[in-house]
């Protein structure tokens, strides 16, 4: 046993400390005092930017983060205001959101759903973030979107292209500005038919995960509707770096078009392999052999170098667009960072502005009020022309760009040229389209 001696001095000291402790304002409370999770104070509001800083999509993540910082600067009245000036809704005036200064916290998703959710939860539980945005893969987007739904936080998706994000995994608290696989297919097919004819046999190489599946399905059904035939569709592991064994059988398969449903490093490697195998010069069925990449990004085009020349694909946005919104954004991004923004940067910048605008119009940070303000909201001036945030599935509907690798790039950023701007009507689908079936939006959850 320990001996304890109570001295007069000791007792007095302990008593003094204890009473000082009790004198501190102490209160105990359960969550749920303010009507919704993480209601911000009067002076500042915290946004959570959850992007991949390590892992395969770290480049996209870094560009997203730059765009977020730019958006926060513009919302707080710094810089040249960027797209605030061209945005059709004029309620944002550079005084933060509802008069509160915008602060932000960042986290690393590592492109893993587990890590992304851990990082998002720490933003919600520790930092008091009122909105989470970011991510550059659909797996992460779906995981974080579900988390935000449970926690009662608005999720503004970053770069996520799979149909599932606003299809079978849609959530009432989640919103996506980026386009999706279906739109890529619908926009690409007519251009492909016009350039390569309707009598074509396609061979698909598909990354073996959800995004690959939805993209393959979208491109397949859109091209088959125009008379193409699908010879074969082969799944390739995501971790594959050498695709020669997958490319070799293509030439003898009777196909005359190769569709690479690959993204990021996968696409860079498979395209390089395909070009090395001489597919671009090859003839099949009496026609020139062609290669198609459904989802393009500038960062990918950069990785694949000269191999992208003349290859068709689709993209959400490109910095060479000449509308006022795009020009304003490219100008302020370029001034701050010295190079033009990628499509990932564009979509995340726009999402941040759209959120801030919705809060201002709703005059509340309550997720349900914000969701209501975003649903069926029509806007313009953010780089994609007239856009609708459809209330049925929280997907943005806007024009889709069909691009092609530029033959004679003038500089290292000038890699893609816009072939056609597919009008929004052509890529719109019914909310219950079979490729998006099985989901349930549910109702918005304000948390707490």
């Amino acid at each position, binding site marked *: 046993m320990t001996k304890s001696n109570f001295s007069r001095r000791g007792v007095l000291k302990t008593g003094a400390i204890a009473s000082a*402790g009790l004198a*501190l*304002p*102490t*209160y*105990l*409370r*359960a*969550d749920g005092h303010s009507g919704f999770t993480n209601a911000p104070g009067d002076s500042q509001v915290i946004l959570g930017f959850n992007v991949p*800083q*390590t892992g395969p999509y*770290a480049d996209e993540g870094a560009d997203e983060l730059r765009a977020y910082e730019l958006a926060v600067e513009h919302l707080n009245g710094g810089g040249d205001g960027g797209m605030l000036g061209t945005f059709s809704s004029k309620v944002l005036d550079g005084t933060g959101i509802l008069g509160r200064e915008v602060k*932000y*916290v*960042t*986290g*690393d998703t590592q492109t*893993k*759903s*587990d*890590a992304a*959710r*851990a*990082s998002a*939860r*720490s933003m919600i*539980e*520790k930092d008091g973030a009122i909105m989470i945005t970011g991510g550059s*893969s*659909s*797996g992460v987007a*779906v*995981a974080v979107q*579900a*988390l935000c*739904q*449970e926690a009662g936080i608005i999720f503004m998706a970053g770069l996520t292209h*799979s149909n*599932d994000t606003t299809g079978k*995994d849609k959530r009432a608290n989640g919103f996506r500005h980026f386009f999706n696989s279906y739109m890529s297919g619908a926009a690409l097919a007519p251009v492909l038919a016009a350039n390569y004819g309707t009598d074509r046999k396609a061979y698909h190489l598909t990354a*073996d*995960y*959800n*995004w690959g*599946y939805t993209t393959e399905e979208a491109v397949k059904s859109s091209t088959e509707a125009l008379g193409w035939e699908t010879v074969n569709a082969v*799944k390739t*592991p*995501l971790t594959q770096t050498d695709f020669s064994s997958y490319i070799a059988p293509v030439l003898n398969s009777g196909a005359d078009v190769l569709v690479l449903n690959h993204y990021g490093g996968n696409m860079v490697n498979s395209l390089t392999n395909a070009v090395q195998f001489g597919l671009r010069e090859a003839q099949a069925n009496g026609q020139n052999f062609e290669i198609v990449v459904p989802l393009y990004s500038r960062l990918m085009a950069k990785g694949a170098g000269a191999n992208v020349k003349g290859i068709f694909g689709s993209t959400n946005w490109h910095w060479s667009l000449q509308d006022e919104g795009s020009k304003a954004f490219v100008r302020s991004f370029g001034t701050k960072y010295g190079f033009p923004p990628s499509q990932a940067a564009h979509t995340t910048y726009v999402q941040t502005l759209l959120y801030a605008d919705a809060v201002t119009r709703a005059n509340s940070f309550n997720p349900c009020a914000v969701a209501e303000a975003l649903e069926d909201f029509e806007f313009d001036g953010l780089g994609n022309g007239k856009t609708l945030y459809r209330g049925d599935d929280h997907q943005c509907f806007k024009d889709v760009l069909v691009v092609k690798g530029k033959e004679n790039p003038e500089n290292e950023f000038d890699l893609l040229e816009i072939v056609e701007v597919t009008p929004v009507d052509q890529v719109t689908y019914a909310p219950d389209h079979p490729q998006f079936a099985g989901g*349930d939006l*549910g*109702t*918005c*959850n304000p948390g707490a």
Partner: protein
Amino acid sequence: MLGLEKKDFRLLLIVVALTMLAPFILNPFPEGSDMAQFNAGYPDLMQRFVIFGILAIGFNILFGLTGYLSFGHAAFLGVGSYAAVWMFKLLSMNVVPAILLSVIIAGVFALIIGYVSLRRSGIYFSILTLAFAQMSYALAYSVLTPLTGGETGLQPKPGDPRILDGALAPGETATPGFFGLFDMRDSLELSVGGWVFTFNVGYYFAAVIMIIAFYISIRIFRSPFGMMLRAIKSNQTRMSYTGLNARPYTLAAFVISGMYAGLAGGLLVSMDPQAGAERMFWTASGEIVLMTILGGAGTLIGPVLGAGFIKYFENIVSKINKTTLEGWFYWMPDGIEDVVITIIYPFVGKGWHLTLGLLFMLVVIFLPGGLVEGGQRIAAALKRKKPDDAKSSATEPAE
């Protein structure tokens, strides 16, 4: 007490005290201060501390006692997670059946993998377990997509059957709970002055389970069975010459440790109902090995400390960005501030791997017995003993 020696009982008491008071211990800095960035006392991270603690305790029963280095332990974590989410989807959002099933499934899975892998020892055993884990990962990521959700992962949805639970009210989301009494996400917040302490139901649930798991691990360490496992580690050949068959013992240890991992997997999805395939990736298995070695393989408390250490870096250091740094060093003169930030920046934020790697190297080089050895050295220094005495009581590193 409780069938433990005095020393072990004291260790158990320390663990109980640490886990129960964690909301205070992990939140030493007042809210809103510059140092609040380092607070770890929020539910998600506290839950991760104890859950990965359980995982490391289980791994230590295999690696610390028998010396068999399994490089595929994350597979059991993943299998447990998927089992628990399926329980949520089909049966009920109650965590108890989910966790029970995850332990059982992980145990069966470990039995199969262990039966095959334990035919070899040393590096061959490690490679076999690694191969099995990567196989499970690949299956979960693509081939078994209908069962595992593939890349997007598996999560409970409003439309799931959940035959034991009543239908959800419109707009309600299904969240894991304990017999409808508690929701795992419920928290109570205590504000004292500038400090805010969060007491989370899920955390305390996981903490109690960790204490039980820790207790069982102490009993295994001190039992004749544990002695047999240690004998396998020190000289398996000699053991078989004396007529003892080591296989049943190693298999039992492997299954027990697999069940611990399954338990951790079940708890992980109970706190955050989402299971993804990355949980089974080989880097996740490697992380478990790191946790154990960093904390001190073969010691009781070491793996728990190692797990906490790694999770702390992953979640706290990775969130420090340039703006945060500027906030800390704003008082410095401009030029010096920039220099200091430029030096520190590569080590925080996305550089957290680098920091962790450096610390891991330092620990392995200077404290081969892990953090536990560090603690023992400090204790010895405080007692003003000669370093020689400290050495004799120090933990031997596991080979």
